[in-house]
C-alpha cells in the first residue's frame, strides 16, 4: 500500500519521535509512505484566524502536489494538519464560490482526488489481524489512557471518523497490543495548544485537568495521536507540576511508539529517549526497558 505522506512542521522537530515511530510501524505493516514533494506548512490555527482563503489555499497547495504525483491517499499524522486538510477537501467540494477563487490562485487546478487520513484510520483499515501478527512483545500490564485531542473527531462533518464524543479507535488498537485501556471522560478535551506560546497559563490549567484525570483513573501511560498534544502534556508537565504543586510523572507516548515497542522495536528506534517525562518506570514494570 502506498500513501502520500505529509509530515508537517512539528514532525521534523518537536515531534520527531512521532515521525520515527510512524515510519517504523508503517514499514512493519507493509505501508509505503512517500513524502510529498516540496511541502509547505498547512497554516494551522494562524491561517484560519487571518484569512479563510489562505487557510484553504495552504492545504490545497500540498494536496495538488500529491495529486500531480498520482496519489489518491494521503496520511497526515498531526491533528492540526489533518483537520486543515480535511476541511479544505470538504469545502472545495461543497463551496463552488470558494473553489472558483482557489482555482484563480493556482496554476494547477486541484480536482479533489486526494483522500486524507490519520494513521489511526489507516491502521483500522488494515485490521487487527495484521497488527496482531506483527506483535513480538505483548504490552500486558500497561494501563493506557488514550487521549484523542480536539480535532481528530471534531467536527464530525469534516473529520468523518470515529465517535465524536467517546472515540474508540485508538483504544481498540492499544488493546490489540495487549495493554489495558481506561474509560475516562477527557479523551477529546482540548489541551489548549493554540495558546501555548501566548497564554501558557490556560494551557497549564487545561493540561493539568487532563493529567489529573489520567491519574485518577489509574493509568500509568498516556497515548496520544498528535505532536501538539504531546508537546503540551509531556513538555509542559514539569511546569504544570510546579504551578499546581502536584506530582503527575505520567509519560506521554505516541500510540505509534506503543505499537513499535509491541512489534519488537528497540526503544531508540521509536524515539523513546526523546520523551521528557521518563517512561522508565512504566515501561520497565512490564519488562520493556
Amino acid at each position: 500500500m502506498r500513501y502520500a505522506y505529509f509530515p508537517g512542521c512539528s514532525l521534523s522537530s518537536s515531534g520527531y519521535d512521532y515521525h520515527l515511530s510512524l515510519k517504523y510501524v508503517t514499514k512493519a505493516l507493509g505501508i509505503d509512505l512517500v513524502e510529498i514533494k516540496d511541502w509547505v506548512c498547512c497554516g494551522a490555527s494562524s491561517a484560519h484566524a487571518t484569512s479563510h482563503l489562505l487557510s484553504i489555499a495552504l492545504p490545497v497547495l500540498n494536496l495538488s502536489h500529491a495529486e500531480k504525483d498520482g496519489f489518491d491517499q494521503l496520511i497526515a499524522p498531526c491533528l492540526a494538519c489533518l483537520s486543515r486538510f480535511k476541511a479544505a477537501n470538504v469545502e472545495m467540494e461543497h463551496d463552488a464560490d470558494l473553489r472558483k477563487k482557489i482555482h484563480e490562485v493556482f496554476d494547477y487546478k486541484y480536482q479533489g482526488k486526494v483522500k486524507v487520513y490519520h494513521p489511526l484510520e489507516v491502521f483500522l483499515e488494515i485490521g487487527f489481524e495484521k497488527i496482531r501478527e506483527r506483535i513480538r512483545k505483548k504490552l500486558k500490564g500497561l494501563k493506557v489512557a488514550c487521549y484523542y485531542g480536539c480535532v481528530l473527531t471534531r467536527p464530525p462533518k469534516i473529520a468523518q471518523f470515529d465517535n465524536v464524543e467517546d472515540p474508540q479507535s485508538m483504544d481498540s488498537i492499544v488493546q490489540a497490543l495487549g495493554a489495558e485501556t481506561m474509560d475516562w471522560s477527557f479523551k477529546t478535551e482540548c489541551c489548549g495548544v493554540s495558546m501555548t506560546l501566548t497564554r501558557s497559563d490556560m494551557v497549564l490549567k487545561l493540561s493539568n485537568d487532563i493529567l489529573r484525570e489520567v491519574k485518577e483513573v489509574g493509568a500509568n501511560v498516556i497515548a496520544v495521536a498528535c505532536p501538539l498534544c504531546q508537546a503540551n502534556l509531556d513538555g509542559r508537565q514539569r511546569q504544570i507540576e510546579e504551578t499546581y504543586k502536584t506530582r503527575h510523572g505520567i509519560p506521554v507516548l505516541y500510540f505509534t511508539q506503543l505499537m513499535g515497542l509491541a512489534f519488537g522495536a528497540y526503544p531508540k528506534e521509536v524515539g523513546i529517549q526523546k520523551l521528557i517525562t521518563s517512561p522508565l518506570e512504566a515501561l520497565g514494570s512490564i519488562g520493556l526497558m
Partner: protein
Amino acid sequence: MMSIVFSKENLKLSRDLQTLTGENVMLCYQCKKCTLGCPSAYAMGMKPHELMRAIQLGLDEKIYCSGTIWICLSCETCNTRCPQGINILRVIDGLREISKKFEYYNPYPALPALHRIFIALVKRFGKVYELGLALLINLRMLTPLKDIDMASPMLMKGKLKLLPHISHGAKELRQVMARIRKLEGAK
C-alpha cells in the same frame, strides 16, 4: 441593566458576518451548549453564547473589547454541539478576519501578533520555525526568557531545532500568498 435601542444599524454586524462566512447567527436561541462545553469559557469575559447574542444585537465594540475572539482555542467543540448547526468557530474566525477594520481596544494583542509572526515565518521559510516563533513572540510580549525551562530539555533532546528548515516550495507559496492578497484586496 443595559438598554439597547435597536435599529437597522444593529443588523450590520450579523449581516456582514453572514456575507463573509455564510453563517446565520440569528438562528441562535441561547441554549448555552457552546459555553458549557467550551474549555476556555472560564477565561472569557464574554462567554460564547453571549458573543452570539452580542452579534445579533450588533454590539461590535463590546465584542472586540472583551477579547473573547482571541481566547477561543479553535477546538471545534461548540460547532459540534450547536443544535442550530451554527459554525461558531467560523463566525469567530470571521470576526478575527474583520477585526483589522475596527480600532477597538484589544486586551490580548499578543494573540493576533502571534498569528502575524506565524504567517510571516511560513512565508519566509515555507514551514514553521518553532524556536524562532517562540523567541519572536516572547520578545513581543516583553518576556524574553519565558518557557526557557521547557525549551532547554527539548533542545538537549533534539526536539527543538536551532535553525529553520527551508521548504523548496516556499517560492511557490509566496506566489500563492501574493495572489490571495490581490484577490482579497480586489473585493
